[in-house]
């Protein structure tokens, strides 16, 4: 311990009032460092203004690719655009080699420490690790003790380190990322975007490529499989779309060829993990986890976790699945361990660390505590255990004298929960801004993957610069920006590529294999939301066109008010608009609805949330439609919500985008089950829309006079069809027939129901389930009711009886459609059942005495 302390203290930086930071680009003598010169030279050849233009181009590219970083506190939707800077951080290959060597050593060390903590615990017995550091750390998962990864797999498969350079020009590790490290996908995407927007830069230097690292990673994951090593099923376990790095989960899954799964997509049976697909359960061999380990299993870990997989720890214990990283790995992520790493390195590796950590003291030792408090103004105090992370760091020198005593008492009450760290003056590099290049402190996240017994670093990483030069933290969460990181080769060197076993010859296939239940679910809802958006835009358009100016007739006013009510019922405007809206209040309500997160914006958001999860199932052009064109349409609606003409244009545009999406779906998607679910969603939604508008319009008009029928035809996009068939007069019977019963009209309810029934028949696997399933029966019943409807009787004289019959049919249809959606969900989708913890319905209590 003594030794560890001395080593950490030796890493302390010279105290100085406000020393200038180490400059990455310029030497103390004002010279541009050699490895920056080609880069700066290339920049200088760009014409004036080019950088601003490239910046725009890059921004568009990030947007198009859907790169986001979610922040919980964000008010406008869960996603926030990616902040980036075009200037890369170049690192010469010789310097990089030293960084690599140190990080490989560190990863090896952390893996060994984990193996000891979850095994014999000799490090604790021999006092190289204070017991309380492990025992009081909530990331130490006791149920995982004694559970070694299957087949000799490492505890630490993937490791990330945040490193920064101090005043003395030496790199230090500021933090270890061990639990479920993020950022590798962002690093790759930063590289890709930069290569496309500033290709000139890459001609100036030989930059080591990132691609091979991902190939190696893929191979390394496959080797973790306890069985099926030639073709294992590997999933990336994500907490879901509300996770702040969800984009990266989707991106990495695609990059590494993994199945993206949420906890509810997996199930444990007889101590094996399975993926739920339409065709049944498929066994999973490896889980690359982006879910924090304590949330992974409500049975043995956090009982309140609703995003884990019940029974997962047992499956790991049984050795049927490998988790990367192992459950419990988070225990060494605590900064409290930093002062002990030098001693642990000596013991476990017989070497020193190579790269020191940022000067850190763990306050859980009495002697250390008193020393640190004596020099309180030299340190930053942070909670060191996960779960305490929301407590902000306290800068000793910024403590008001009056609050100092209370603060020390707070530390003294639970000293083991805090570390003191020296303030680090991180090196700075230029960031491009409208006013020119300005220096900003930086930190680099480096990534290493375990491959064949050693760790292989990504040649590069994700450099992050702080939002300003005052802050303590360089982090994306606090508004920093990301940069590409270059390892500059002296000359081209051969690149090591992971080898995968030679694949056997592929048999011909006509389907993409078993569709994951989650994907089917998302496609179904994508279809529903796209159609719902289309219907909403039509309804809003019809309302906009009828906003009464002066001198509106009583009938026009009634029509307008009926529309207002329909909008309110569907949540497209606020219901509180009152009983009798006028033109102005309607315009306000519509404008407000377009600018808020409710109503139509909610539909846009829903589509944008779902689309990335099924991106693999969409063609590039379809993706373009749901991502770019839809974003565009939304921006148009939001741009001038008060302007009726612009709103109308926006609605037209939205309707056009929806049409393009549906058109591409029918032209470009193979008729597999994926397409069927997308179309099923759309048909169900359209049938529901048809039934509900007919019902609403007849209820409002009482009998169905001509102008009302015209409105109905317009809302159901059947005006032209009607006119070509019936020329002039608009009468109830033909309108009802066209909109409800006519199975040749692609807008009729009957048409939708026929397709729904057909889809369901095709999806039901008769070999497995020979009898008609509930969802098939409901669809048939709904279709039959519409087919048997006596449209001539009802349409010829709209009296009270006729209205009752019509209302029966429509109400019944709406009810059946709701049942149908329910039945489909039950039959095919994965997360219908609630998960409950019993016997221990306790959220861990935490009392913070201060």
């Amino acid at each position, binding site marked *: 311990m003594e030794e560890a302390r001395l080593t950490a203290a030796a890493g302390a930086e010279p105290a100085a009032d406000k020393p200038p930071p180490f400059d990455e680009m310029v030497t103390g003598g004002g010279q541009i460092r050699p490895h920056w010169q080609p880069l700066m030279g290339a920049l200088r050849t760009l014409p004036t203004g080019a950088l601003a233009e490239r910046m725009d181009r890059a921004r568009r590219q990030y947007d198009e690719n859907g790169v986001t970083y979610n922040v919980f506190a964000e008010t406008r939707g869960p996603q926030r655009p990616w902040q980036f800077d075009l200037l890369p951080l170049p690192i010469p290959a010789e310097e990089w080699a030293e960084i690599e060597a140190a990080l490989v050593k560190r990863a090896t060390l952390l893996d060994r420490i984990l193996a000891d903590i979850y095994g014999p615990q000799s490090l604790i017995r021999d006092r190289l690790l204070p017991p309380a550091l492990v025992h009081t750390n909530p990331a130490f998962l006791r149920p995982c003790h004694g559970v070694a990864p299957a087949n000799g797999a490492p505890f630490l498969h993937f490791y990330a380190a945040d490193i920064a350079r101090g005043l003395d020009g030496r790199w230090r590790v500021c933090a270890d990322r061990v639990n479920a490290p993020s950022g590798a996908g962002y690093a790759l995407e930063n590289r890709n975007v930069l290569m496309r927007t500033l290709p000139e830069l890459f001609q100036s230097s030989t930059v080591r490529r990132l691609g091979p690292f991902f190939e190696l990673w893929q191979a390394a994951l496959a080797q973790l499989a306890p069985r099926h090593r030639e073709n294992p099923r590997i999933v990336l376990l994500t907490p879901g779309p509300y996770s702040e790095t969800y984009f990266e989960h989707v991106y990495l899954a695609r990059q590494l060829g993994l199945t993206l799964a949420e906890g509810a997509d997996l199930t*444990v049976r007889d101590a094996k993990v399975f993926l739920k697909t339409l065709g049944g359960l498929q066994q999973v061999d490896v889980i690359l986890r982006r879910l924090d380990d304590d949330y992974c299993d409500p049975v043995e870990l956090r009982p309140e976790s609703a995003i884990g997989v019940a*029974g997962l720890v047992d499956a790991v214990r049984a050795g049927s699945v490998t988790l990367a990283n192992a459950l419990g790995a988070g225990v060494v992520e605590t900064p409290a361990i930093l002062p002990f790493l030098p001693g642990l390195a000596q013991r476990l590796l017989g070497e020193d660390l190579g790269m020191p950590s940022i000067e850190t003291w763990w306050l859980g030792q009495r002697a250390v505590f008193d020393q640190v408090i004596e020099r309180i103004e030299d340190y930053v105090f942070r909670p060191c255990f996960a779960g305490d992370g929301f407590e902000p760091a306290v800068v000793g020198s910024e403590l008001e004298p009056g609050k100092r005593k209370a603060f020390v008492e707070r530390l003294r009450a639970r000293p083991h929960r805090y570390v003191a760290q020296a303030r680090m003056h991180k090196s700075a590099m230029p960031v491009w801004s409208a006013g020119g290049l300005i220096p900003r402190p930086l930190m680099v996240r480096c990534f290493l993957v375990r491959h064949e017994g050693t760790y292989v670093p990504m040649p590069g990483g994700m450099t992050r610069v702080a939002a300003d030069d005052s802050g303590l933290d360089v982090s994306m969460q606090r508004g920093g920006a990301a940069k590409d990181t270059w390892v500059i080769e002296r000359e081209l060197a051969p690149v090591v590529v992971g080898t995968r076993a030679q694949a056997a010859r592929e048999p011909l296939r006509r389907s993409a294999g078993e569709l994951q239940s989650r994907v089917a679910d998302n496609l179904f809802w994508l279809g529903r939301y796209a159609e719902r958006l289309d219907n909403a835009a039509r309804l809003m358009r019809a309302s906009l066109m009828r906003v009464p100016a002066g001198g509106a007739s009583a009938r026009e006013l009634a029509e307008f008010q009926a529309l207002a009510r329909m909008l309110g019922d569907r949540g497209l405007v606020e219901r509180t608009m009152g009983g009798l809206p006028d033109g102005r209040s309607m315009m306000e309500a519509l404008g407000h609805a377009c600018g808020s997160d409710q109503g139509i914006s909610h539909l846009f958001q829903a589509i944008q949330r779902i689309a990335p999860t099924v991106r693999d199932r969409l063609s590039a052009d379809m993706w373009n439609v749901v991502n770019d064109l839809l974003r565009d349409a939304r921006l148009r609606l939001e741009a001038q919500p008060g302007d009726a003409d612009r709103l109308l244009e926006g609605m037209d545009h939205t309707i056009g985008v929806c049409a393009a999406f549906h058109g591409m779906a029918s032209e470009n998607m193979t008729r597999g089950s994926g397409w069927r679910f997308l179309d099923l969603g759309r048909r169900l939604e359209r049938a529901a829309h048809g039934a509900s508008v007919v019902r609403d319009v007849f209820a409002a008009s009482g009998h169905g006079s001509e102008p009302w029928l015209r409105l109905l035809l317009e809302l159901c996009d059947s005006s032209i069809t009607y006119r070509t068939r019936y020329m002039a007069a608009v009468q109830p019977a033909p309108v009802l027939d066209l909109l409800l019963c006519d199975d040749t009209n692609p807008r009729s309810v009957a048409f939708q129901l026929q397709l729904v029934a057909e889809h369901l028949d095709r999806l039901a696997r008769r070999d497995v389930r020979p009898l008609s399933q509930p969802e098939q029966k409901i669809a048939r019943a709904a279709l039959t009711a519409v087919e048997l409807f006596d449209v001539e009787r009802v349409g010829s004289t709209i009296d009270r009886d006729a209205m009752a019959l019509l209302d029966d049919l429509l109400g019944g249809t709406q009810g059946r459609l709701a049942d149908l959606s329910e039945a489909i969900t039950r039959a095919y989708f994965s997360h219908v*059942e609630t998960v409950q913890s*019993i016997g221990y319905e306790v959220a861990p209590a935490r009392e913070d005495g201060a």
Partner: protein
Amino acid sequence: MIYDVVHRTTYRYAEPVDLSYHVMRLTPRALTHQRVLRSAVIATPAPVRVHDTTDYFGNVATYMSLEEPHAELVVDARCAVDVQFPVPPDPLSTPPWEQVRDSLDGGGLPAETLAVEFVRESPLVAVDDTVREFAAPSFPAGRPVLACFLDLNRRIKAEFAFDPRATGVATAVREVMQMRRGVCQDFAHVMIACIRAMGLAARYVSGYIRTHAPAGQPRRVGADASHAWVGVFVPGTSWIDVDPTNDLVVCDEHVVLGWGRDYGDVAPIRGVILGGGTHRLDVSVDLRPLDVSYASEQDG
């Protein structure tokens, strides 16, 4: 003393449960002073997978999963044990509590690695000023550590009322301190919190207690259900079990299932069910002393 124990837990669900996973700590722990003559945990309907593991604290944890729909789950835990806890040392012969505290502190050179685990707060045992203030009178300077514990044990029994309706599984120590009422689990947590507030080690023990016939004497509290008490650490003697619900030192009327930092580590049954809706739970415990030892009739 030999006991025959039948512990039946019944879950009745409003809707069928499709899948369930449970971890049960219902097998008595083998100890030098507790011989397990036989034990079995049987669930109905029959689980797809059942297996025993030894958990981090050395308790037997039975893992089971059920994969067919069921509306009722019955778990029967039966065992026969022979218990005879050692007579505790004379409290006055134990070291002063401060000395024990210092030996457990990370700064010294403690020999007591196993005890260190039980010195700090744990998920269900938080220490606050109320706890510290309550504990303090039992720990005057220089008092032998076991005397402190026994005094605390007595005070909890005297100052807290037994009231099964006052608390639930999730009731925090802070609330129990406020209400001054609860059940064995609450009193054990309170005592553990007090001991840890002083920097000493205490663990939560789960098990059963013998009930005496009501004739003449009052029924002992904690009967006919799972019971819980506290293991306190006394250097030299290691762990001594005391029961704050009944103000006694455990001797031959308690059966130990297992121990942990708090209830969360040794809940008799915890699990996750899929589906099920609301559920009803019934627990019955029957602990019968055997007049005649039939250990010799057992074949293993």
